[in-house]
Structures are given as C-alpha cells and as structure tokens.
C-alpha cells in the first residue's frame, strides 16, 4: 500500500518536475524575504516556567516589587576613592541618564542621588535627617565631606556605596512592557542602549562602568550569538569539503548544500511568518537544520550515485532514489520532528520556541532534501566512472565493512553487548549524579571571563550585594503590618529561614521595623523589638516607604528577602525545602508564606521545572521514536534494536554532563531530546535496509554487510558532518552554546557508533540463525 502511494507520488512529482521546482523557487523567494525581516529577540518572560506556582506568585506581585528584572550599574573610581568632583559629576550623569532610558521604571531608580536616599540620626530632642545628597550639594571638599558623613549615617555602605568606597551603585527596575506602546520591552535594544548611553559616554580611564542585570546579560548573549554566524560559515565550508570528498562531484556537492540552505531559509522565514523572533538560545537550530539536511542529502546523492553506477540514467536514478528514501528518510525526519515537539511539554517559553523552530526546520527538510533534491538532481547529468575493477579505495572501504560486519556475528555480538552493559551501568552511576541547574557563579550563559561576569564579580566583591536573592512573599489581609502578631510571625519565619545553610542574610519589614523602633528609642539596641503598642508599631512601620520593597501600598503583602551564598542547585533546594517546612507550620488563614521571587526564586522554579520535565520528556521522545520505528519496521525486534543503543548513549551523555560539570538547565535539557531525535536516524537507515533482507531469511551478518555497503559510508559521513557542524560551537562566546556543542557532538558521534556497532550486535542476537 505504502509502496503504491510512494510510487504514485513519485510519478506525479517527476512528471510535473518543472512546476514543482518552480513552486519551490517561489516559496524560497517568499520565505527568504520573510527571513530577512527576522529579529533577535530575548524576553525575560520566555526564560521562566510561567505556570510554576513560584512564578505565579512572582507574576502576581511583580507590579509592586519589581521582581527579578533589574539592572545594576556600579560606577567605579579606578583610584579606589570616590570622593572627588569628577567622580560625583559622572555618577550624577549616570543616574540621570539611566533615569531617561526608555524601559526603566523611573520610580525605582536608586542611587545616592535619588531623593529617597536619606539618612536619619538620633539627637537629644529626637531625630535629625535629610537626603544624603543635600539640596545645596557642591563637589567641593567640604561638600564631599558632608556627603561622606551622610552616607555613613544612612547605612547605605555595601548597598549604594562599595564597602571600600571605591564605587557607587545606580540600580533600576525594568518594565516588561512599554507603558506607552504596550509592547514588550525590547531587551536587546535596551542592552545596546545601556552600552552606548552609559558605558560609551561615561567610561574613562578614571571611571569604569560595570553593568549587570538580566537585560544586560541578554544583550551580551545576543552579541555572542552573532558570532555564531562565523561558525555557520565555517561549518558550511567544512561540510562542503567533506561532501566533495564523499561524492567526488561538484554538482553532487553543491546540490545537497543548496537544498539544505534552502531548508534553513524556509525555517527562518517561517519563524517570521508565525511571529517569532530568533532567540540566542534557538540560534543553534539553523545549524541543526543545515546539518540534518546535509546528512539526508548525502543519503540521497549516495543513492543516486550508486544507481548511476549501476547504469541507470540520472533521472531514473533520482526517481528511484526518491522512492527508496522517502519512507526511511521521512520516518527519520518525522521522528526528529516528534522528538523536538515533545519539548513543547516543558513549561518554559524559550524551550517551546526551540521546539517549534526546530520541528519546523526539520519538517521542511522533508520537502527540500527528500523531494526537491532528487527533482533537481534529475535535471542534471551525473557522470560516474563505470569500471569493472574496484579501486584501491573501494577495496579499503570494503575491508572496513567486512570488519564491521563481524559485529553481527554471535561471537562478537556477545562481547559488544557485555561491553555495552558495563558501559551503561558505569554511565548510569555517573548520570545519577547529574546536577540540576547552573553550577557556576555569575551568568551561566556566558563564560566566566566575559565582561558581564567580570562585572558581576566586581559588584559582588565590592558591595554587600549578591545577585543570588530569593524572595518569599508573605500574603496577608490589608493593613496586616499594623498587627503585632503578624509581624512577629514574619520575624519568626525570617529568623528560622536565616538559620539555613546557604542563607547569608535576610531582610523583611519585621526586621527593619525593629531597627526603626530602636531608632525611635534613641538608637538603643535594647529597643530593637516589635512594639506591642499599636501606636508605636504604626509609627515604626510608617517610616518604611513602599519603595523599600518591603511592603505594598496597603501592607497586605510583605516580602522576606533571602540573600544566598550562591545559586547552586543544592543550595537552592536546601533553602526551598526549609522555607516550605517553616511555611507549612506557620501558614494560617491570616497570612501565608509563598515562594518565590527574585533571581534565585526564578532559578528555583526553573530548576524544578527542568527536573520535572526531564523524565516525561524522555518518555515522550522514546515513546515517539518507538511508535515511529514500529510503524516503519513493523517489527518489535527491529524497534528495540534501534532504541537500546540510543538509550545507552543518552545515559552516557548524562554521565558526560556530570564529568564536565554541565548542569541540567534550560539550555542543556533540550539537547538530550535533540540528540535522541537525530541519533535515531542512523539506526533507521541501517535497519531499514537490513529488515527486508532479514525477513527474506538472509543471515544477519550478510544483511548487515549489504546495509553497510549501501548506506554505511553515508551514515558514518552523516555522523561526522553533524558532529563537525556543532563542534564549532566549542569556540562560542556563549557558555551554553559551548555546553550544547560538546553534548551534541558527543551524541552525534556516539549514536553513529552505536548504530554501526551495538545495533548489529543486537540484531545478531534478535535474529539468531536457525540451526
């Protein structure tokens, strides 16, 4: 039935080949135009699991507390002392400039120049105080001396001023949507503006500008992602050389490359059509599409070439190659697509985007490389030397196939299988130690020595600021903060969580109110308590503005900030577990302690989402591959023989992650699915050739040998091409691309080895020779 269908399709396409190619050209022009409109796009919101309960809390209170999308600009005086006129002028300019950059929430710009930065001191008859930068401020020696005194009185050293007075901080919250246009903030444009308007304008020999925050990181990641273009060119070049070595024909080199590039153009164009931008995370997709396209293209030219060598005309050879490859190629590509589509089950926008763009890309390869390519080939005239005597090279290749075919003999099969089992369990033991989340300090997407991470380390070294903040949101009734028992419970909660390994310090409305109360009592530390008298309590709370981020307008919501040692997964897990345990004891109908906001809150949710997604994702990918193999082979044995090597390789890839300290994160989670989706191709190509021969009763070794002769070189070639394409990422400016590159290279190569070594061994066992 299927065969009939394919034959009918073939005769239809080849009869109307001019028209069909014309349609392809037209579509390519259209999508090419669309692709040229494609924009880089990196929104914070795409990186977080929006439906996770923590993120629901985060989103609910984001308006009041800004949440996690902030920017910090540390202005450093390279002399190590900020108290000079030049520095203060620059700092003021930086503050004003940041205030006016569109996308900044102006109410939340904070530095010593913001009017809300005040000091208070206790004097005999009460309080004295004022803004840290007095109204009559001048950059004279005495003016700077006054500011210095005020800074100390205001207790902002460590937050707005570096501990060693070598720098000062200007911080701001960003709005996710432009209030005027209602459009999402263009993070990358914003980052470019920071670079231009702040660093470009104000950085000198004397003053250095350090900028951190998600937006800046996204900008730097986007810049790094642009470097990928170079890798793309390199990958195309290397691939071209390899295809030529393989085909020894310029036409057969150019055509699959052109068709594969067509697939890339289609994929990028389709992104614009469906309204997507190109995210730095999914910039790897064009690579994959190209590499997968080439690998299928190589199968195609290989098939054509063999047929031409057998004496067919190029056109007949192309049509016949189309017939023979449409089903296995289609199944392989479909299983890739399905593998990517399973990523949709993960509740993180960026992974879903990756899933969609990758499955689109792989889907179009069916058209460009299984349909367009043979059609275009049919217009050409391929010349192959038809010689009776095999060349020296062919002899060599044949020797390799003979050698490999031994793996399909029971004797070798047993050895291979035992080795596989040993390898599997060794790998499993390592894989089980795979860490979740980001394992390094700073921004994990970037290298440790990137400007952004150096800036991060400068800020964390010189300020008592950590970017590793998790916020627990306390939800209560309106005016809750005027009740002694409510604040006492928050205080109690804060203290219990403070006593968790990994929590360095904490702050909440309760702990600040205690300090304010001491302030009202002549600064006497013996009054650092929550006053029982409502009047005193209200007096203390009244001193704390909503801009402090410690309470909302009607004080029904009061966050507790947890400043953490780092953002390693174990640290986060320990703290989250403690928060949950304490909250479970303390939650009542009056107030609830809810996770989580702040950068580490987002990481906690992401880690949980990633960890939770891992198993279902694997099940879906393998389920899909299983079903597709079952359909195409109609053999349970064949399906298992394809899947076992895949599974062993996935496990080994996880073991490799443990070995290389690569955590399971948003960027590495999809790699496993991609690796499986693409890795299955090899097995499908080999086994599809074998299975018909096997069902005709051919011995396994012979069937495998013939499969190798027919497709072995294409399979090995494909594995190497894919691996070379992604291995260029090893030099990427982006840490996550490097990680992905390493893992994908590993998966492509080892899956290929699995298909030519483990698969025949399994086949030898499954289709044992009748004695």
């Amino acid at each position, binding site marked *: 039935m299927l065969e009939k269908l394919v034959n009918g399709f073939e005769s239809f396409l080849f009869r109307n080949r001019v028209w069909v190619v014309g349609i392809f050209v037209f579509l390519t022009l259209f999508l090419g135009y669309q692709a040229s409109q494609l924009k880089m796009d990196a929104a914070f919101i795409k990186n977080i699991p929006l439906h996770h309960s923590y993120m629901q809390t985060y989103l609910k209170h984001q308006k009041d507390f800004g949440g996690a999308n902030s920017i910090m600009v540390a202005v450093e005086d390279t002399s190590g002392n900020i108290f000079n006129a030049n520095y203060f002028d620059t700092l003021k300019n930086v503050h004003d400039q940041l205030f006016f950059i569109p996308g900044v929430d102006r109410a939340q710009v904070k530095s010593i120049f913001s009017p809300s930065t005040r000091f208070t001191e206790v004097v005999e008859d009460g309080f004295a105080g004022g803004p840290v930068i007095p109204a009559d401020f001048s950059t004279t020696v005495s003016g700077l001396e006054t500011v210095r005194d005020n800074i100390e009185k205001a207790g902002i050293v460590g937050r707005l001023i570096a501990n060693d007075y070598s720098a000062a901080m200007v911080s701001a919250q960003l709005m996710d949507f432009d209030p005027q246009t209602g459009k999402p903030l263009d993070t990358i444009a914003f980052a470019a503006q920071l670079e231009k308007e702040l660093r470009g304008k104000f950085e000198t020999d004397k003053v250095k500008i350090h900028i951190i925050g998600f937006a800046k990181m996204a900008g730097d990641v986007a810049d790094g992602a642009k470097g990928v273009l170079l890798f793309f060119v390199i990958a195309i070049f290397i691939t071209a050389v390899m295809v030529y070595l393989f085909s020894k024909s310029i036409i057969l080199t150019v055509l699959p490359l052109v068709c594969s590039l067509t697939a890339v153009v289609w994929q990028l164009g389709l992104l614009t059509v469906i309204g997507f931008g190109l995210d730095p995370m999914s910039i790897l997709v064009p690579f994959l599409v190209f590499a997968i396209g080439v690998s299928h293209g190589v199968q195609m030219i290989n098939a054509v070439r063999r047929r031409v060598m057998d004496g067919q005309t190029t056109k007949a050879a192309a049509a016949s190659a189309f017939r023979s490859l449409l089903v296995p190629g289609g199944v392989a590509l479909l299983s890739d697509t399905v593998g990517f589509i399973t990523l949709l089950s993960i509740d993180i926008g960026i992974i879903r985007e990756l899933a969609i763009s990758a499955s689109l890309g792989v889907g179009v390869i069916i058209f460009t490389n299984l349909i367009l390519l043979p059609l275009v080939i049919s217009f050409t005239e391929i010349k192959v030397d038809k010689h009776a005597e095999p060349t020296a090279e062919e002899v060599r290749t044949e020797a390799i196939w003979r050698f490999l075919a031994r793996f399909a003999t029971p004797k070798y099969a047993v050895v291979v299988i035992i080795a596989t089992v040993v390898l599997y369990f060794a790998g499993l033991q390592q894989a089980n130690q795979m860490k979740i989340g980001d394992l390094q300090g700073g921004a994990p997407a970037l290298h440790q020595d990137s400007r952004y991470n150096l800036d991060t380390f400068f800020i964390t070294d010189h300020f008592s600021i950590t970017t590793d903040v998790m916020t627990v949101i306390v939800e209560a009734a309106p005016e809750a903060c005027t009740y002694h028992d409510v604040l006492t419970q928050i205080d109690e909660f804060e203290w219990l969580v403070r006593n968790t390994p990994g929590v360095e310090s904490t702050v909440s409305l309760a702990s600040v109110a205690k300090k304010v109360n001491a302030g009202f009592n002549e600064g006497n530390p013996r009054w*650092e308590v929550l006053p029982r008298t409502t009047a005193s309590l209200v007096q203390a709370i009244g001193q704390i503005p909503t801009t402090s981020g410690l309470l909302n307008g009607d004080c029904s919501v009061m966050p507790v900030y947890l400043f953490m040692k780092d953002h390693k997964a174990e640290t986060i897990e320990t703290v989250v577990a403690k928060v949950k345990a304490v909250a479970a004891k303390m939650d009542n109908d009056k107030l609830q302690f809810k996770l989580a906001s702040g950068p580490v809150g987002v990481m906690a949710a992401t880690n949980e989402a990633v960890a939770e997604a891992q198993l279902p994702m694997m099940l879906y990918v393998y389920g899909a591959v299983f079903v597709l193999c079952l359909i195409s082979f109609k053999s349970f044995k064949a399906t298992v023989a394809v899947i076992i090597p895949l599974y062993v390789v996935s496990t080994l890839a996880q073991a490799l992650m443990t070995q290389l300290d690569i955590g399971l994160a948003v960027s590495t989670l999809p790699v496993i699915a991609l690796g499986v989706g693409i890795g299955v191709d090899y097995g499908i190509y080999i086994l599809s050739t074998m299975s018909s021969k096997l069902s005709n009763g051919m011995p396994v070794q012979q069937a495998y040998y013939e499969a190798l002769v027919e497709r072995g070189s294409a399979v090995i070639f494909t594995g190497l091409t894919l691996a070379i394409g992604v291995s260029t990422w090893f030099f990427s400016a982006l840490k996550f691309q490097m990680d992905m590159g390493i893992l994908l290279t590993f998966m492509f190569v080892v899956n290929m080895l699995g298909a030519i070594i483990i698969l025949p061994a399994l086949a030898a066992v499954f289709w044992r020779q009748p004695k």
Partner: protein
Amino acid sequence: MSFRILQCVAALSFGGAFFPSTLSATPSDPIFSQIQPLAASSLILDIANVGKGLVAVGERGHALVYDGSWHQVATPVSSQLTKVFFLNDKLGWAVGHDATILHTQDGGQTWQQQMHSPEIEKPFLDVVFLDENNGIAIGAYGLFYRTNDGGAHWSDEFHEELLAEEDVSYLAELKDSDQSAYVSARASLLPHFNRILTLTDGRLLLVGELGLVAVSGDKGSTFARTSFDYDGSMFNAIETKDAVYVMGLRGHIFKADVSLSQWNEIELPVQSSINGAMSVSDDAVYLVGNAGIVIKLNEDDTSSIVTRRQGENLVSIAKDNQGNMWLSGSQGLFILKP
C-alpha cells in the same frame, strides 16, 4: 531539637513553684526560645561573668553559656532579654521585654520564668540582687519591681520622688478628678530606668532617660536625684577604684568621685551612644557603643578609639577567664582583636 524541648518542659515543671500570679501570655506568643545555630550571632544585649564561664542573653529569648565555646540553652520565653545578673556562680536573673523575669539556679544552664506580663507593654532593662532574697528589676517608664523572696513574688513600686515637679502636681490633680487618666498617666510619666548598680558602699545608683542620675541609701526604697546638668539619656554606669562614671546618648560620659556630688563631663572622640563599659585595669575603662565603637578611657580622662566596627552596634563587653575580651551587639558575640 525534641531533646531541647524536653529539657525546657523539665525546667518549667521544676520551676513550677515559682510561677507568679502575673504570668500570662497572649495566644500568639511562641512560648519557648528556639534553639538555632545562629543564636550566637544574633543580637546579644548583655554578657555576665559566672564562675569560670560567661552567660549572655539577647533577642528572641536567647540565652547562651560559654565554657570554651558558646552554646545556646533553652529559655521559656521568646521575648527579647535585655540584661542578665548573677549573684554568685549559681543564682542568676535575666530580664527583658514583655516584663519578663527569668531565674536560673545552675549558673545559666536552665531557666525558669518568674514573671512574664506582655500586657504591661513595657520592658525590664536591668536587674540587681542585693542578696539571694532581695532584688530589684527596673525598666521603661519608671518600671520598678521588687522581690523579698528571691523572685517567687514580684511587686511593683512607683517612685514618685523621681517625677518632675510639675508632674507631681499634675498627678495629684488627676488622682482626685479622673481615676483612669491617673492610672494611665502614672504608667508613663516617669523616665525610663536604664541601669541600676550597687556601689561598693552599698548605695544604689539609678540612671535613665532625660538625664536621670539618682542614688538611694535605703536599698532602693527612695531615690534622690544627684545634681546633673545634661538632659540626654544615660544608659550605663560603672564604678572604678575611686570614681563613678555614667554614660549614654551621643558619646556623653560623666565622672564623679564616690560622693556623687559633682559630675564632670569627659570629652570622647565620638558622637555615638555608649552602651557598655568594663574596667580593664586599675586605670582604664573600655567603653562600647553604637556605630561599633570601642574606646579606651584612661584615669586621666584621655581616651582613644580602639576599634570601629562599621554597621553594627555594640552593647556589652566582658572578659573570660582566658583573658579574651568578648563584645556583644547586633552581630552577636565575638572576641575583641587587640
């Protein structure tokens, strides 16, 4: 953890006989202090020498015992403890917010509650015992409780003689006209009593808010203000070989001879409140205070800043039997590095 709670319960039942009639707690009060790893770095407000070791108290009902290292012991309250006083190696009392008085009979290892009256809404700020029966606890707004039976019963006293003159007549008026206004005025007219100290000659020195420096020759039944010109708060007092110092707000410190007839101000190089003091030798006193200052004050009234710990307040200073000087304050307990 559960072991600690058991210990608390045991301590409670042991001290059952001492439960005063004033005992009460609102339902939301966590009853016990929580044993937590960071107690020694929480806000610690007083350190006392006990035998060979030290005992410290602080926020959240924290009590800690030092015997080469600090460990937290359970107390039956979570109210902030402001002061701790030891009569000898065994008998001690700690006082604090929510009108709390705790008692120990084993050098600070276990604590029993003698008084806990959050409804008064005033803290005790100091406690002194003249012998094992007679003790006085003082606190905010003239809070003054006395016991004659080692703390089994505490009864309050109102030291009218420390009222300002105009307040005396105002109170007399109210007493005749409006009983409830009289009661509430009486509860808030007196200044805070911050520190009570037994002098070597047996007199009691009381210092407090609004320049209160008073002395009692009759075990605290009546006090007389000494002539004192400054009207800021005094937080602490210390007696040395031949002088008495009182100290407090904004770096103000005054010195008098034992007659206490004339106080002379000593200039300090700081403007931060002085909270704690300790004689380190016959001729020098160490002072600690807000803004992390530690000052050495010499007999000849010269002084120097020993250290300044940014961003924290120091409240108390004590020396252990190894000669280490322990400081306490907003960052907890730590040794003063020479």
